[in-house]
């Protein structure tokens, strides 16, 4: 571990380097802006690390190559941006149904349709509520800085393996493109290769010396699929209880709590500092996991405020989860833009002063 060493990379590249340090040895991707730096970094770096890089013929092929790699027991990942992630939904549903661990990075851009290539947070519903067909969830992590983009890859691969679920890194075009210095700090468990070499007795490696393994999501016999779905629900219940994470800032005495994730949380963090200087008691909840959503942050003992302001680069997607978490006990306000713009610091501050 070298705490001193800092390197300057974009969020996209930091995610790629984090993935490799976290033991990812298979990457398949397809060109799409604004995440191309990630694919290009992997093309150069993955072979150095002894892994496999493939530029796939489509987003659909890329996610299915990841499925094959994950089924064979290798830490695997793909990345894309909004329209490409829509194409991957079939594969993500199959990963969830076959209980395969894999990491999918979405550097969100404006939608719907082809939209544009500017930053957005409009895929929150798609990431947290399923996205593909069937009753399933992905773990969804939302880093807000380049350092955190690197760090989060260790949690993403570990938790994906632990729960055998697909993990989504939900970033935005801004996070992907911005360059910041960060420490290449590897958690002790990874440095010791403990977390990097997880036993996967279910993996397809050839059946020599054991009974054959089958990786599948198909349950044709009456009742079998319901039993399987109930098993998935139990797993999700454990994740809801154990894995929901957030970062809270000055919540105890706050009259107004801002809620934002990713790039919006950085802007809101500046808003909170500005408001505090003006004497207004403001705080910030930054969900780190979007699924499971950190409902504990909204309990009265943690955030006693009666007034909340949700800020998103969308027209109110996470807003719904905040309302559910507060369950009517506080006023929930919203400020958001989508299509390439985001609410600026002074605009949010002005809105907050009115509340």
């Amino acid at each position: 571990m070298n705490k001193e060493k800092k390197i300057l990379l974009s969020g996209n590249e930091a995610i790629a380097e984090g993935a490799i340090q976290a033991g990812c040895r298979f990457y398949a991707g397809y060109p799409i802006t604004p995440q191309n730096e990630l694919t290009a970094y992997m093309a150069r770096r993955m072979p150095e690390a002894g892994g496999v890089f493939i530029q796939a013929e489509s987003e659909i092929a890329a996610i299915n190559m990841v499925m094959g790699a994950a089924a064979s027991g290798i830490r695997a990942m793909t990345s894309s941006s909004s329209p490409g992630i829509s194409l991957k939904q079939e594969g993500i549903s199959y990963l969830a149904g076959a209980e395969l661990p894999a990491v999918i990075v979405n550097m969100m851009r404006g939608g719907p349709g082809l939209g544009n290539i500017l930053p957005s947070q409009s895929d929150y519903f798609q990431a947290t509520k399923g996205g593909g067909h069937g009753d399933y969830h992905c773990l969804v992590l939302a880093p807000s800085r380049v350092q955190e983009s690197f760090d989060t890859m260790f949690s993403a691969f570990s938790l994906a393996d632990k729960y055998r679920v697909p993990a989504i890194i939900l970033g935005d075009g801004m996070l992907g493109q911005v360059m910041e210095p960060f420490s290449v700090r590897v958690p002790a468990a990874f440095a010791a290769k403990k977390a990097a070499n997880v036993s996967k007795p279910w993996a397809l490696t050839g059946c020599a010396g054991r009974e054959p393994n089958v990786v599948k999501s198909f349950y044709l016999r009456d009742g079998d699929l319901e039993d399987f779905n109930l098993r998935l629900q139990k797993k999700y219940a454990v994740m809801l209880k154990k894995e929901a994470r957030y970062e809270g800032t000055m919540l105890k005495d706050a009259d107004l709590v801002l809620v934002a994730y990713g790039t919006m949380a950085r802007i809101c963090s500046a808003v909170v500092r500005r408001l505090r200087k003006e004497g207004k008691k403001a705080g910030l909840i930054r969900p780190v996991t979007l699924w499971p959503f950190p409902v504990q942050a909204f309990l009265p003992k943690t955030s006693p405020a009666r007034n909340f302001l949700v800020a998103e680069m969308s027209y109110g997607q996470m807003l719904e989860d905040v309302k559910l978490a507060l369950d009517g006990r506080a006023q929930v306000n919203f400020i958001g833009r989508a299509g390439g713009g985001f609410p600026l610091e002074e605009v949010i501050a002005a809105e907050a002063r009115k509340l």
Partner: protein
Amino acid sequence: MKKIFSRPESLRDITTHYCPGCGHGIAHRLVTEVIDLLGVRGKVIAVAPVGCAVVAYDYWNFDCCEAAHGRALAVATGIKRCRPDRVVFTYQGDGDLAAIGTNETIHAANRGENLTVVFVNNAIYGMTGGQMAPTTLLGQVTSTTPGGRRAEVQGYPLKISEMLAMLPGVKYVERRGLFCPQEIIKAKAALHLAFDNQLRGGGFSLVELLSPCPTYWGMSPAAAMDWIRDTMVKEFPLGRIK
């Protein structure tokens, strides 16, 4: 007394769901005989399709992976690249390989992935009830071509094997028919060569098997065999393509 014939170890002793006279039973038997013959059962990772052979993993006695409809060769690419010393093959029907999965098929072939493909062509979608396949013959009646397939409306039967043979990454392509014992023996030899190619690092190999579907062709099993011999082979000639 010496035992000279038995069920392959790679084929489980289970009743299959296939219709009477279906070619999948023969194709499964041939694939598993070849795997036993090569002594690689413990190294095999198969990719099962979506289609009539969707639960092939229930019948085969080696590691298997499911793939979404058409995605078998993308899944197989991921497996083989991560486990290059394993024997990886896909088993796909005409709809899976030559319609919804055409893109995955062409690009895996063009990359020259060191994989074996067993392509079962019965000119129809069986699992879903007899719809037109990319390989359905002109004039052939299906549930979605009730007046028979017409070139000017539905286009021509897709000769995907000939298309793939054009690609430099493809090393071996052969088409055989599962309609009489002599031809079935030739089909087994082709499969043997296709797996052997992979073991020697030879690259992408594909064996197309013309296979009977008496249920959705509306024929007796014997008549379905004759239809391959007399009609289907005219559109899909047998032999080595590459």
